[in-house]
């Protein structure tokens, strides 16, 4: 095995080592620790980029951890989807880390950097693994790190929300284990490729249990993705936590979506008998409601963080609406929009953070405040973030929505899907216009109390700007991006290629272009 082949574990090992080193260094030298942490993020991103480039040849690579062959050991799978998600996590990681350091958010509590790195590790591990139990483990890693990050800083409200967030997710983990148990009990394997083969061969008398297992598993993913009615944890959690943390959390719901994309077509695809496409009847209505409730929340929100939280909810709902058709084109559209909505959600939170810091006691509430320094710049950033999040031109949100609308053409529920996507866009537009015009345009009465806020370094604008830069990039390179989404979706649905690559890595050939 060459060192290039070994790079696969980079996205897992690099954050782990960075976390440990930062933990050791931070005790004495804070700035050095923060620098190491940032460097770790950048290196992780570089590793992800390299892997992405590797995977762009259409080949599915596998990496047997511990040198045990699949399905007996844990195998990491490198394909377009997983590397794309790695890159997304890497980009988001760097942006959020830059912002955290620039605004000093990392100094507002303990162990921000190790927790952050561990969360990155959990995300990357979840994207890479080809083993269902290992997926559970990485879910737990990213969850528990998110608990720590979520509680970073102070506040009774944050703690109360944190209690709910943690407990709901612990119950979710229990469901995951039950589902895993059922699957192992019936098939005797944990490897996803192997599982795909064995689920297809399950005798009819086991169909009920397999179906229940598949549904439970999807329910767990839906809980992470915050699909109605399993979404109740999200708004409170995201709006109560520090915005910079919430910005990183924008990818968390998408992990649930990723897991669905990874597992459902492979294991519960067309060949799964009674368990074929198990989530289908439930996912679409749930997703429609999620989008509706999310963007209704955007409309009704009275603060930027709350609004951003609902925007994340709504965008995930939108993603799942389209995903629920389970075709290759819809999945491709989903993937493009998934990346964009992650970045957009994160941007909203970063902007909310800037506003929060600029407006002192007025915070991010949609009330008039006296004119504040940096109002123009923050307003511009908000505008861009809102455009991206609502899905207006010229940013990638619009392209994503076009892709999704087009991909759902001809599906049974086209009318409902289109109506929901378009009407929720309108809700978002009005909602963002309301808060934005109040916060960035409206000026408080002259007798209003002057803002007491510490001056904000210009570097505080770097994070949101980078995030918007990423969105602009995703727009300008929408061609290659949508090609990636298309070919990634093709790989997702070419389950034979996946199974072949994982179970017979030596024999696996190149998978063709879509």
């Amino acid at each position: 095995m060459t060192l290039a082949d070994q790079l696969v574990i980079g996205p897992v090992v690099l954050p782990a080592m960075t976390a440990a080193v930062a933990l050791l260094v931070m005790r004495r030298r804070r700035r050095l620790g923060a620098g190491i942490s940032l460097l770790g993020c950048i290196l992780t991103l570089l590793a992800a980029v390299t892997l992405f480039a590797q995977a762009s040849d259409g080949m599915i690579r596998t990496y047997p951890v511990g040198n045990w062959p699949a399905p007996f050991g844990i195998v990491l799978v490198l394909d377009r989807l997983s590397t794309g998600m790695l890159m997304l996590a890497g980009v988001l990681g760097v942006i959020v880390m830059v912002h955290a350091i620039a605004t000093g958010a990392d100094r507002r509590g303990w162990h921000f950097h190790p927790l952050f790195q561990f969360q990155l590790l959990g995300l990357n591990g979840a994207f890479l693994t080809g083993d269902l139990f290992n997926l559970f483990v990485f879910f737990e890693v990213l969850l528990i790190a998110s608990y720590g990050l979520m509680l970073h800083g102070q506040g009774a409200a944050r703690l109360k929300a944190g209690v709910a967030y943690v407990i709901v997710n612990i119950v979710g983990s229990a469901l995951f284990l039950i589902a895993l148990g059922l699957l192992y009990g019936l098939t005797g394997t944990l490897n996803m490729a192997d599982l795909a083969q064995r689920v297809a061969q399950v005798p009819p008398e086991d169909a009920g249990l397999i179906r229940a297992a598949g549904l439970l598993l999807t329910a767990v993913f839906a809980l992470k993705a915050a699909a109605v009615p399993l979404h109740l944890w999200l708004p409170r959690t995201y709006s109560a936590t520090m915005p910079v943390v919430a910005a990183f959390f924008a990818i968390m719901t998408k992990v649930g979506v990723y897991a669905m994309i990874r597992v459902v077509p492979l294991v519960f695809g067309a060949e799964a008998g009674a368990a074929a496409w198990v989530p289908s009847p439930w996912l679409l209505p749930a997703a429609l409601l999620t989008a509706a409730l999310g963007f209704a929340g955007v409309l009704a929100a009275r603060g930027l963080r709350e609004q951003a939280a609902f925007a994340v909810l709504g965008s995930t709902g939108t993603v799942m609406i389209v995903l629920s058709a389970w075709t290759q084109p819809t999945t491709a559209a989903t993937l493009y929009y998934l990346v964009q909505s992650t970045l957009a959600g994160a941007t909203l939170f970063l902007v909310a953070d800037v506003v929060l810091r600029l407006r002192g006691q007025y915070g991010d509430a949609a009330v008039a405040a006296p004119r504040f320094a940096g109002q123009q710049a923050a307003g511009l950033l908000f505008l861009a973030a809102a455009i991206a999040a609502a899905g207006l031109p010229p940013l990638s949100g619009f392209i994503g929505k076009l892709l999704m609308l087009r991909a759902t053409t001809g599906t049974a529920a086209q009318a409902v899907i289109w109506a929901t996507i378009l009407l929720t866009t309108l809700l978002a537009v009005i909602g963002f216009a309301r808060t934005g015009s109040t916060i960035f345009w409206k000026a408080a009465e002259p007798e209003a109390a002057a803002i007491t806020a510490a001056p904000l370094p210009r570097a505080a604008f770097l994070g949101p700007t980078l995030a918007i830069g990423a969105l602009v990039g995703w727009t300008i390179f929408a061609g290659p991006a949508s090609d990636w989404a298309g070919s990634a979706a093709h790989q997702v649905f070419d389950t034979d290629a996946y199974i072949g690559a994982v179970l017979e890595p030596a024999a696996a050939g190149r998978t063709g272009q879509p």
Partner: protein
Amino acid sequence: MSLEFLVATAIAALVAGGVYLSLRGRTFQVVLGLTLISYAVNLFLFAIGRLIVDRPPIYDKAVVEHTDPLPQALVLTAIVITFGMTALVVILALRSFLESGSDQVDGRVEADQRDEDPRP
């Protein structure tokens, strides 16, 4: 009665109790509920390897029948993770109580230690 029946009903009882308790209004009870649920989940995960009495998974060439080691490994991992989660949630609940003066998960935050039942 078979062992399978005992284990299945034990799982059922633990889950039932756990679900009931986790729907109660105070963090401590909820934590207790989670504890019961995690017992049940561990037992469940263990049971999927089928029940075999007295065949510990210690490798021996002579042994033909043995218990399935993999679920055991999974349960071990699950126990550890559950422990970490439980520890965190307990301390989180405590901190939240200290911060707000109430250990209720929902509703009134202004309630305080007067919640204590005067009866012993």
